[in-house]
């Protein structure tokens, strides 16, 4: 089995100490589920980066959703994980207890379909996620062309700014395969030229172990590198069709990452032409800056500056049942993974 060979390479690794940041929440989750951390030697450290869309969603965004639901009476359609993320004073789950209409959907298009079937309701879809999920939100906007009761509250993010912000926190990146299936690998190659190494990885045990084995083997040689270890899905050019779709409907903007701050041009918003699908403009929402628990160290966890157990709230005040920080909410969050898998 390929994965056993890769596992052996990792276990025998005796090169210089190496920090590897997995940028994707699904990677974090799968690494724990497969027990990969348990077989790594002390010289290899894995850092869980800012690639869980729920974890980087700021409190202010949750405040906006609560306002839309309770003050404007909108029906909120969202991916399930967001429901429990704490805002400044409450989460969407709390708002639901106060009468807010919150529907969990699996795809943005389902939200548009719901709006079509419920013309008496104002339906707002919470458009969060990275390059992988943004095209689906754009498809929903196109699908809803004839509707005047459907809009998006956008908080979509793009990865390049995050790579830039994190480049000094790690020795190399384990790039998220699904993001680069859309963007292509140009950005990774460019970073390698600038001295930032990385490998692009898939999501099965075998794909993750192979990518990690390739990464440490190349790292030991000392030259910056990029290797696409997920060629089955990730092509050099990515998906031009998906990028054209997003380009037509959305444009880059500055965006706040929970715990990290505002990263310039790291977000996506609707173009002026699509303003009528923009919930912020449609309902004239005032700017909301939100405030999270000051003791929460999610931001540092996301940047690999501390481990979840270094946070004074971890496992005591902050648990999956009662999350304080967003990293504890999603099954993909680093704190949740550390808590659940012990």
């Amino acid at each position: 089995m390929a994965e056993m060979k890769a596992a052996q390479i990792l276990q025998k690794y005796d090169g210089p100490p190496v920090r590897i940041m997995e940028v994707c929440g699904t990677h974090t989750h799968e690494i724990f589920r497969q027990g990969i951390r348990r077989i790594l030697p002390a010289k290899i450290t894995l850092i869980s980066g800012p690639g869980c869309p729920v974890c980087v969603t700021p409190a202010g965004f949750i405040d906006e959703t609560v306002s839309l639901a309770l003050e404007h009476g909108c029906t909120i359609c969202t991916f399930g994980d967001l429901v429990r993320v704490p805002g400044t004073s409450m989460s969407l789950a709390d708002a639901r207890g106060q009468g807010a209409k919150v529907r969990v959907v699996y795809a943005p298009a389902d939200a548009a379909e719901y709006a079509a079937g419920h013309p008496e309701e104002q339906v707002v879809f919470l458009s969060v996620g990275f390059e992988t999920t943004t095209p689906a939100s754009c498809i929903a906007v196109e699908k809803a062309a004839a509707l005047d009761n459907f809009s998006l509250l956008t908080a979509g993010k793009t990865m390049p700014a995050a790579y830039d912000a994190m480049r000094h926190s790690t020795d190399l990146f384990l790039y998220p395969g699904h993001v680069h299936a859309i963007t292509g690998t140009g950005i990774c190659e460019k970073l390698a030229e600038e001295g930032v190494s990385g490998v692009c990885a898939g999501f099965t045990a075998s794909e993750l172990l192979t990518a990690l084995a390739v990464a440490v083997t190349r790292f030991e040689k000392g030259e910056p590198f990029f290797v696409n270890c997920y060629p089955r899905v990730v092509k050099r050019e990515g998906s031009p069709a998906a990028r054209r779709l997003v380009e037509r409907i959305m444009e880059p903007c500055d965006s706040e990452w929970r715990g990290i701050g505002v990263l310039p041009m790291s977000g996506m918003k609707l173009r002026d032409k699509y303003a009528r699908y923009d919930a912020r403009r449609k309902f004239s929402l005032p700017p909301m800056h939100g405030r999270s628990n000051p003791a929460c160290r999610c931001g540092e966890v996301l940047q690999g500056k501390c481990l979840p157990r270094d946070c004074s709230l971890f496992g005591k005040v902050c648990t999956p049942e009662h999350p304080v920080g967003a990293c504890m909410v999603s099954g993909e969050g680093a704190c949740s993974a550390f808590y659940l898998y012990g």
Partner: protein
Amino acid sequence: MKEEYVTLAHGAGGKKTAQLIETVFRAAFENPYFTADDAAVLRVPQGELAMTTDSFIVSPAFFPGGNIGKLSICGTVNDLACMGAEPLYMTCGFIIEEGFPLEKLKKVAEAMSQTAREAGVLLVAGDTKVVGKGQADGVFINTTGIGRIMDGIRTSGALARPGDVIIVTGDVGRHGCTILLEREDFGIEADIKSDCAPLWKAVRSVLLEVPDVHVIRDATRGGVGTVLYEIAGQSGVGCELNSEAVPVDPAVRGVCGMLGLEPLYLACEGTMVMIAPGDKADRILDILHGSPHTQGARAIGKITKEEAGRVVMRTRIGALTLLPPPGGELLPRIC
């Protein structure tokens, strides 16, 4: 023909109520013990009795692989079977929402009758109440069952011992996955049927040949994972699973992959956990494989002295990881 509905008059105790009982329930449940009086009169068997009750509120009431009627018999029969008890008598109480189609109610009663016959249990008494529109969701059913415990059998969640084998009697998570797909608008189409089935006959065949089974648990709400955590706690032992050995229907695995769910935490309605001395594993599996509802039975792990109170998994790369303990509501993952 005009469609007929249950009305508040059906619950008022008069002619309409009698008519409902005659045409729907008596027609389906007829047996010598089924009472027209205030209480059923039963013969007391020798030995020890087991008794259990359960309420069923599944939404939707009809789903691929069964309906609330079939479920209400399986749930109670299987709870008795877990104690090594042959199901003898059952009662059923219906709470019906005004406006529920009579035709559907007949289908529910027919499913109950058919499943009860298969399990060899007699429905001896029942009750019907009708509530106003919106005061219940379609139909709710409560069933209570009495069974006779087989001589020499003693099963309990506190009896698991290091070295025991952990067996599941079929693939895991199918009922929970079926309901999830029916209930939520995920727009995912998958060919998945609930595993809902009465398991007494399979359990009986095992216990006749292997009376020293230590634990039998019905993996309903919370699934196999929750049941194993309960047993680990009650017996003060650890459960070590082989992740590759856990049987999961490929469609269920696919759906769980998309929604970020763990099949071990999805409900089963026709799959049990059996824990027995390790040297009996092959014999038990042979017997289960000969019974219609348990042909997918597999040994999935063992009971250990180490890791007391916890459930750990040996993953395909040989690493030992914790199965995250049960908690919170089931939420789909984003990406």
